[in-house]
């Protein structure tokens, strides 16, 4: 059996005022995501209930034929005026595009969701993990799926 990895990914900010979210659904449907960054984001991160990937990571996923990132949609973002510069000591600011993606609970795919003790976590295949390791996932908590 191939090794799989569980990631509790970065949460680098929160939804901004231009987000359009529909809480008549569970999980909530996000029609447009405006993210306000508190700090520079990893290449894959979360803002409940959606996962977001950088354009560079998304392109690599597609080019390598990895599965599990569906229905990519461009998000808008801004920086938290109150404390971005305080938290992000090096002053680095995000400049690339980010996409929110749908990820299913289908363990056959390279990226999937898994429920562990009532918590939702990202589960990735060995080859997806090898790709992620070449990107910035510094703020993710990572463990091997037993």
């Amino acid at each position, binding site marked *: 059996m191939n090794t799989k990895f569980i990631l509790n990914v970065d*949460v680098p900010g929160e939804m901004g005022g231009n987000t359009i979210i529909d809480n008549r659904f569970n999980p909530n449907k996000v029609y447009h995501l405006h993210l306000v960054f508190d700090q520079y984001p990893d290449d894959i991160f979360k803002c409940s209930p959606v996962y977001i990937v950088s354009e560079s990571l998304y392109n690599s996923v597609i080019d390598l034929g990895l599965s599990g990132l569906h229905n990519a949609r461009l998000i808008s973002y801004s920086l938290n005026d109150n404390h971005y510069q305080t938290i992000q000591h090096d002053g680095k600011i995000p400049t690339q595009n980010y996409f929110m993606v749908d990820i299913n609970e289908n363990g056959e795919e390279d990226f999937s969701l898994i429920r562990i003790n009532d*918590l*939702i976590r990202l589960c990735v295949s060995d080859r997806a993990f090898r790709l992620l390791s070449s990107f910035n996932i510094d703020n993710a908590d990572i463990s091997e799926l037993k």
Partner: protein
Amino acid sequence: MNSLENLRGIPQDINSEVHLKAIRKRWNDFYDANPDGPNMSKQKLLNFAKQIDNEFGHLFLPPIR
């Protein structure tokens, strides 16, 4: 919810980023488990804020636990 007594500060020491990240991840897990949006009860939010205080309050400025 927004009263001054509920205001928390996290010292800007070497661990501040670690603590902020951990707190944001915990709130995301809470939102996953409670997708009530604006209909979420104030009590539910306050109860979880108290949990966060219990876990991280000793790191706040001033410490609250």
